[in-house]
Structures are given as structure tokens and as C-alpha cells.
């Protein structure tokens, strides 16, 4: 074991990579070597630290000094001043706080108090390429406990009692889903981790996978044991090159340690995981379309029932869960259902990971308890709306989620409350839009997306998305009348009841919430004027 007097953690989350963190990291490494302190200072690339629009971000330990917007030109100064002379470079210090790491938290805001990290407990703190660092944070302890001290039924009971529900959008109780597959008798069962994540505005799963891949691998081992599945697959979007590489490395490390393969922990239970790569199709996030794609076909959804729990991949019982759901499993097994239930609300226990984007001051990755209000998320965690503009709209749950107005700011963010408002938690995307934007223009962008991504298999969705796009275009061009709105409602309502999968069914969610919650602005368009001056 080597000892270092300082660690520099450079955020390697995809948004920071897009902001140029790799070049900064390389310059830090070069400067450290040139200063002759390479044996004293270790430079590590971690997962996402949270403030995605402040990148490149880095932390210097043991002080916990956070630097943001670091350029290649700043790297040498940080090394010479901070690491050689021990004087932090004040002009580069991050102005906000980062919950996982900030030691000198600014108590004037609630940013620090509100967040609670269960899923992201290790993200940004460990080197995601090191299985040793994961194990040092009690990694694989839950899998060891489950496999050697619990029966599969006890594992399922623990998850049922915890109240964990699917974090991919459908909110199905996780324990129940596992129980269905555990009860099915078959010669082969499968666990699939759905990391397709095509929902615009959503990138939490990528940051979980890239920041702490072993957490997901461990969750899948536990799920395999609970259901009797011996093979697992992680289906990752083709565009997520970094996630694919990192997860494959993680699987390899777990195999080398005997944490995947035969007879894990000497329990007699064997489990292995393979990565499958997507190729750019939003509909593949739908579980049966994903299964079709994994079988090497066009990713067209299947007619349900039968559900994957009894007839999934190759017709065998299959559990399909989202990345975030699976990342919750090891902590629940390790700490028990009562521990989990102390966070969130009675019917929506635990936390929710969101990606906060759009017109908000602190963009990025956050994890908060279920049930905090939209206002708290936007103004306390998100730091409010930039440029002195007013809040106009929040779309929750991605493009297929509902659009909420100012009147909904005090709504608790949990499954039931959002459903009552016509919306959903969905994928955890939170798109904040200020008053410089027009709701009809936003609706047109959303419809364009659905039209483009409809797989074309079922008529209501294929034709419906096209027609709705035309109608919204007509509103946008100030040429629509009341009857067009009625037609759009009728069409979207029909798609909701007759489309084969959630893509066609959910078009009505953003459309109806825009019609209902922004009716004044829609009416103005029918009268030939755009209040925001956009159309």
C-alpha cells in the first residue's frame, strides 16, 4: 500500500469530459511530475461530482478544496501553489457546495441539507475503475451477506418491505417484480439492467454507471440470487462509449476477484454479466423493445401480456430494471428496509436522482429524498432562474413527462402527487424553462421528437405522432382554431388507449399538461398572438 499526502480527484463525468477535463487532468499529472512530487500526490479521475455546468471540476484532499471551471492554463498554478506551497488558489475555488465532498459547506443555503446520497454515495468519491476502492467502501458486502446468510425469499422480502419502486419511470414495486420471476419455473432466467436511457434531459444512469459501476454489478448479483437467474445483461446506449468501457472493465475486475462466475462467495450460486450495446433508438428503452434488440432484431415493442417476468429474453423469465433501481438494492440489503424507509414518503420511500437542466443556475446531478417540493429543487438546490428571468415551466420525467406551471411549485415530488398533476417522476429529468420561451414552441420540439422516434410498428403512434406534430405546427404558425385543439386532444387520447407501448401512450402527457396548465398562452395563439414573442 502506497501513501500519498494529497489526492486530486478530477471529475470524469461525461459533462465534465465535454468541458475538457481530460486535458486538465493530463496537465495536472504533467505538472505534478515536473514538480517532482509524483510520489506524494495521486491524481484520480472520479465519477460525476454534481455541478455539471461548472466543469471541469476537481477536489484536492485532504483539505476538500473544490475548484471549478479549471482550464489547462490553471493546472500548473494549482500544482505550484496548492500542492507544492500549500496555498489554495482562491480565484478558482468553487462558489457553491457539493454535498458529497464539501467540507466548508455554506450554511446560508439548503443545498447541502436537502440532498441525501444513497445511490450516489460513492460517485465522485472513489476511482470508478478501481474495484478495491469500491470494496473499501463496503462494496460487495451486501452481496456477500445475501448469498451466504439469507435465502432468496428473505432477499425478496427485504426489498418488498423497503417499498422500493422502479426508478425508470413505471414505478413498479421492485420486490414484487423479483417475486414474479422467482416463482416462475424455468431452466434459465435472466436479469437485465436497462441502461438505454434515451430520454432527452436524462443522464443520471450514465453518471451512476460511470461513477460507480460496481454498485450496479453488485445489485444484479443480488437480483440473480433472489430470482434464480444465472445470467445478467447490461444494455447500454450505443452513444455512451464511456459507460460501455467502464462497465466492461468493472465486470472484468469482478470476474478476476471471483465476484462473478461460478460459486460466488462459496455459496454455490453462479452469476455472470455481459454488456449489450444499443445503436440509437429511443424506443429500445421500453423493456420488450429492449429484449427484441438484445435478440438481434429491430427494437419493436412486443404485445403485453405476457410480461418479461414470465416470458422475456428468449421467452424465459426475465427481470428488467433501470440502473438507478438496481443501484438501490445493495444499500437496502446491507442496511435493511427500515433504514430505507426513513427517507422519502410513506408511499414513495427512498431518494430520487435527478438531472437538473435548462434555465437554472446549478445544473447537474442531484439526489434528494422523495417528496421535497418542486420549489425546493429549483430554488434551493438549483439556485433559481438565471438572468433575472421568471420561472415558467418545469418538465418532469423527460420528454414524455408532464409540464408543470408556477401553480405547481409546491407540489411534493413523489409518484402520487405528480400523477395527480397529470405528470410523472419518469426518468428523473427536470427541465426548467424560463419566461423567454414559448410553450407552443416547446410543444413543437417535443412532438418533433416523438414523431422522429416512433418505431412505426403500430398505427396509432406512427400516424398519430405525425398528425399531432402538424397540428402543433399550425398552432405555432398562429393558424389554429379551437377545433384543432379538440382534434389534438381526441387523437392523443386515442393514442394513449391504443398504442402498443409507452412511447405512443405517453405523448398525451406533455401535450395535455401544456394545454391544461398553460391554457391562456394557447388561447393567445389561437387569437393570433404569441405572448412570449417567439412564434
Amino acid at each position, binding site marked *: 500500500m502506497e501513501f500519498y499526502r494529497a489526492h486530486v480527484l478530477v471529475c470524469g463525468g461525461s*459533462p465534465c469530459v465535454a468541458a475538457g477535463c481530460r486535458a486538465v487532468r493530463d496537465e495536472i499529472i504533467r505538472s505534478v511530475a515536473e514538480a517532482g512530487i509524483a510520489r506524494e500526490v495521486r491524481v484520480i479521475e472520479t465519477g460525476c461530482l454534481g455541478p455539471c455546468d461548472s466543469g471541469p471540476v476537481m477536489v484536492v484532499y485532504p483539505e476538500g478544496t473544490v475548484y471549478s471551471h479549471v482550464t489547462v492554463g490553471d493546472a500548473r498554478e494549482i500544482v505550484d501553489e496548492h500542492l507544492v506551497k500549500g496555498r489554495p488558489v482562491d480565484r478558482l475555488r468553487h462558489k457553491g457546495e457539493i454535498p458529497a465532498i464539501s467540507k466548508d459547506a455554506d450554511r446560508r443555503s439548503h443545498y447541502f441539507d436537502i440532498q441525501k446520497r444513497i445511490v450516489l454515495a460513492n460517485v465522485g468519491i472513489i476511482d470508478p475503475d478501481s474495484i478495491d476502492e469500491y470494496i473499501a467502501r463496503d462494496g460487495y458486502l451486501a452481496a456477500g451477506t445475501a448469498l451466504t446468510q439469507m435465502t432468496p425469499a428473505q432477499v425478496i422480502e427485504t426489498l418488498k418491505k423497503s417499498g422500493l419502486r422502479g426508478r425508470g419511470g413505471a414505478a413498479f414495486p421492485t420486490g414484487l417484480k423479483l417475486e414474479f420471476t422467482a416463482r416462475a419455473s424455468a431452466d434459465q432466467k435472466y436479469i437485465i439492467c436497462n441502461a438505454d436511457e434515451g430520454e*432527452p434531459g436524462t443522464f443520471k444512469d450514465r453518471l451512476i454507471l460511470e461513477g460507480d459501476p460496481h454498485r450496479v454489478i453488485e445489485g444484479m448479483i443480488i437480483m440473480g440470487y433472489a430470482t434464480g437467474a444465472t445470467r445478467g445483461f447490461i444494455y447500454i446506449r450505443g452513444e455512451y462509449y464511456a459507460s460501455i468501457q467502464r462497465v466492461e472493465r468493472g465486470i472484468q475486475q469482478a470476474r478476476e476477484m471471483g465476484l462473478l462466475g461460478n460459486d460466488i462467495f462459496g455459496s454455490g450460486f453462479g452469476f455472470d454479466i455481459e454488456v449489450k450495446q444499443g445503436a440509437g*433508438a429511443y424506443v429500445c428503452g421500453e423493456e420488450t423493445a429492449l429484449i427484441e434488440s438484445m*435478440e*438481434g432484431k429491430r427494437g419493436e415493442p412486443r404485445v403485453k401480456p405476457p410480461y418479461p417476468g414470465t416470458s422475456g429474453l428468449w421467452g424465459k423469465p426475465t427481470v428488467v430494471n433501470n440502473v438507478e433501481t438496481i443501484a438501490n438494492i445493495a444499500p437496502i440489503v446491507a442496511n435493511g428496509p427500515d433504514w430505507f424507509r426513513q427517507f422519502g414518503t410513506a408511499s414513495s420511500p427512498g431518494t430520487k436522482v435527478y438531472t*437538473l437542466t435548462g*434555465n437554472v443556475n446549478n445544473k447537474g446531478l442531484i439526489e434528494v429524498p422523495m417528496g421535497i417540493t418542486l420549489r425546493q429543487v429549483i430554488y434551493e438546490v438549483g439556485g433559481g432562474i438565471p438572468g433575472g428571468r421568471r420561472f415558467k415551466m418545469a418538465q418532469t420525467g423527460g420528454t414524455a413527462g408532464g409540464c408543470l406551471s408556477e401553480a405547481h411549485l409546491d407540489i411534493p415530488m413523489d409518484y402520487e402527487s405528480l400523477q395527480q398533476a397529470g405528470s410523472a417522476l419518469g426518468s428523473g*429529468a427536470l427541465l426548467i424553462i424560463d419566461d423567454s420561451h414559448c410553450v407552443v414552441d416547446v410543444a413543437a420540439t417535443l412532438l418533433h421528437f416523438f414523431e422522429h422516434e416512433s418505431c412505426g410498428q403500430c398505427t396509432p403512434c406512427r400516424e398519430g405522432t405525425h398528425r399531432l406534430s402538424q397540428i402543433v405546427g399550425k398552432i405555432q404558425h398562429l393558424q389554429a382554431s379551437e377545433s384543432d385543439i379538440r382534434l389534438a386532444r381526441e387523437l392523443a387520447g386515442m393514442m394513449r388507449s391504443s398504442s402498443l407501448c409507452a412511447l405512443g401512450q405517453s405523448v398525451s402527457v406533455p401535450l395535455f399538461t401544456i394545454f391544461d396548465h398553460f391554457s391562456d398562452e394557447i388561447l393567445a395563439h389561437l387569437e393570433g398572438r404569441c405572448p412570449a414573442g417567439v412564434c
Partner: protein
Amino acid sequence: MGGVHVCSGKPASGDSCACDDVFLAAVEKAVLPYRGRPEDLVLALHDVQALRNYLPREALRVVARVLEIPESRVFGVVTFYSMFSDKPRGRHIVRVCESAPCCVMGAREVIDALLGELGVDMGGTTQDGRFTVETTSCLGVCGVAPALMIDDAVYGNLVPGDLPAILRRYE
């Protein structure tokens, strides 16, 4: 299907025929690890496409033969997924996001500037065969929107003025 590529001897990039024997041998070599595994068709197509940035018809025939599946199924899969192309593409694929989170942050101006800079329409390939511009539903870096991706590198927090310097890095 309008523009199914039939081997004409001259691909857009102007180098040797996309479908010569050397290329088809490379295709066969790329697909061989997947022999007998039709479920890995998507992975096989990724590997084949990496050779020339697109999938010529003749290459799909090789894939179908090696995986022992009908050509129609291979073609059906190629046309379903947006990352695959059956038409010649440039040496570098530029993927831009047109979804709401990028649009709210000014993606339209960046996309217009990009197309203007390169002198192409959406989906088009530059005259010199350097770039093909395509849309994607989301790049998953919405925290730094608007963003674009060139091959496997992502660029974020873009304003139109950033484009010339970024494009200059690609030959």
C-alpha cells in the same frame, strides 16, 4: 428506401471502391467472431461499420451469410437504428441534439451555424468527405447543453463561435 447504396465503384470520400475484395475480407474478419450468434447482429454491425463509417450493401450480404440469417433481417435492423447508415458518410460523424433541453439552451443557433460552416443540410456530407451531420435524440450530457458529438468525443456549453476551432481538429 430511395437511396439504397449499390456499389458504384466510387464512394463519396473518393478513395478506392468501398466494396473491393480487401474491404469485403475485412468485413468477413470483423463478423467471424459472431458466427452462429445472430443475437449479436447489432454488435457485429457496429464492428463492420467501424471499418468505413457506413454499411454498404455488399457488406450486409457478408454479415447475413456469416450469421446465417436472411439479408432482409440484416437490412431491417440497419434501417431501424439511427447509428447505422446504409449510405456513404464522411470520415467523421457529427451528432447534434435537437431535443428540448438543448433547444432551451440555444441549440438551434449552434446547429444553424454548424450547417452553415460546413455547407451541408441535416444528414448531409461535406464536399471533401470530412463530415456527415446527423441528429440524435439526446447525447446524455444535458448539463452542458447545447452539445454535439464528433465520433466519440463530446463538446458542451457551445456557442456558434466555438465551432470553427472544434472542426479544425478533424482531418
